């Protein structure tokens, strides 16, 4: 059974059909790329998948469960985590607390225990610290645990955002232009990180990207969007050789 099944997803803003009849099937463990020119509707697809927008039509199934119409917070609990095109960290919180917010729903103690620091507080906090440090270690951020996240260099902020998303234990990870604004070195490092997540957590990843080197380097399959419609989809090599795709990207 496919991990993610999206059928006939559509949304209209005013008179503009931003996403039209979008279909996508992803198997567990796949690394899938979503590409397309600016304004093609890629981020809108992400926002539909994560419940930021409500689809006018269509069905989203995750692991066999219908999650269409769920709210954003619910969808994260269902198992889809994401990062953002313009980094959205909790900038006044330390690095470790960013990850601990991600761990929020896997650990539990009551509000009274929060206020009084009694009961399960100390034990659970310790477990959360350990879990968060483990994740930070994977992303090579453990030395910066007490930095304010706003003070991290750009590349590390991206990594922290991915770490925070991973902390929610998702089944599917959505990365929205992870390489945006990165220099070639940082991009190369990012590619390693993405590979690492796949190997280490056996993660299924859907990513939006403009950096063709990254896309052709790591994505196994691609879907190309243009004006809200699917232009082509299939194996990366075939899609990138498709004359329609080249036309949409580079012009004739």
């Amino acid at each position, binding site marked *: 059974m496919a991990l993610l099944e999206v059928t006939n997803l559509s949304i209209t803003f005013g008179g503009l059909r931003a996403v039209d009849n979008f279909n996508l099937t992803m198997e567990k463990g796949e690394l899938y790329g979503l590409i397309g020119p600016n304004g093609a509707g890629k981020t809108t697809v992400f926002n539909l998948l994560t419940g930021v927008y409500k689809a006018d039509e269509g069905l989203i199934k995750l692991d066999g469960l219908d999650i269409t119409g769920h709210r954003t917070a619910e969808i994260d609990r269902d198992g889809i985590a994401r990062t953002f095109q313009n980094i959205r960290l909790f900038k006044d919180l330390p690095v470790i607390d960013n990850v601990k917010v991600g761990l*929020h729903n896997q650990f539990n103690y009551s509000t009274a225990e929060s206020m*009084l620091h009694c009961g399960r507080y100390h034990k659970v906090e310790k477990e959360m610290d350990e879990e968060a440090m483990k994740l930070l270690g994977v992303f090579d951020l453990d030395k910066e645990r007490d930095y304010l996240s706003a003070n991290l260099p750009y590349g590390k902020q991206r990594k922290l955002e991915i770490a*925070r998303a991973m902390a929610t234990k998702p089944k599917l990870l959505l990365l929205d232009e992870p390489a945006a604004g990165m220099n070639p070195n940082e991009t190369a490092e990012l590619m390693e990180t993405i590979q690492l997540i796949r190997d280490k957590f056996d993660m299924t990843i859907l990513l939006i990207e403009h950096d063709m080197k990254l896309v052709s380097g790591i994505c196994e399959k691609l879907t190309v969007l243009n004006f809200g419609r699917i232009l082509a989809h299939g194996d990366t090599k075939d899609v990138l050789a498709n004359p329609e795709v080249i036309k949409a990207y580079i012009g004739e």
Partner: protein
Amino acid sequence: MRKTQKKTLITYAIVIIAYIILEIFMKAGLMSSHLKGLLVPMVYYAIAAVALNLCVGILGELSLGHAGFMCVGAFSSAIVSQLLSGAIPDALRFILALIIGVVISALFGMLIGIPVLRLNGDYLAIVTLAFGEIIKNILNSIYLGVDSAGVHLSLKSQMALGLADDGKVLINGAMGITGTPQDSNFTIAIVVLLISLFIVQNMIDSRDGRAIMSIRDNRIASESVGINITKYKMTGFVVSAAIAGAAGVLFSHNIATMQATSQYFGYNVSIMILVYVVLGGIGNIRGSVIAACILYLLPELLRGLNKYRMLIYSIVLIVMMIINWSPALRDKRDKLRKKLMKGAGHGAA
């Protein structure tokens, strides 16, 4: 983790040391009765500032009606104290009044929060502003009495209550509540302040607190990691309202005749508390306490200077703002602090 724990411990230490010093001054008779009378108000404004900082600095929602929550706490606890006065031991009665004042303020916080905290934007500021004024005006026009037949309520006059001979007027309209037992003293106020600090600082360093601060920093991201936005906004706001209510309880048990006037519970008071919070540093709980104490005492202590009083007060406001918010000065302050810490470390070694 260790760093935040150290920070909170320092806050408690500062409060306790300041308390001991002031107590010694009082016992030694070095304090004028005027100054003595200022100590309890100073502490309950500090508590209100802690409460408002939880709302503004930690939750990131502007409230302009915290004097309204103080008002609710003050009146509800005063009524409880009046009803039970003489019936049960004083200490027990005050604790009961405190709990009821806090709970009712929290309820009002919840009532306001349910519709408003679902929205994003500055709606809370407007609604709380209105709430503060409405509650003040309602309490100004209510006549409430109790006798053997039960509770009597009127909006007209004291006579309209039609109380029996054994009756007792609780709220006398614009004349307010008279004769609430004077239970508040400096020690009790400091204990309530320490409890408020304990709750707020603990909360900041916990699962709930992190969720609340994540909403402040980035609501969309917070939602995307599965945080229930409405629930945690509500938690923060209700706790903030409850603590403001506790400040109100201290207020009502410190004043012989309490009226719901602008002087005590008006818009100006809410803004004054906000000034304490902003100048003490938004999100800086310890700063709120210090700023509230300095800024409350200053105009009172400067009374002797008469003409120049407000001038000096405003200069202090400006200087505090610059010290707390200018990046260059903040850097210098942090460096100085590090140096001092290092120096102390060497000294110890």
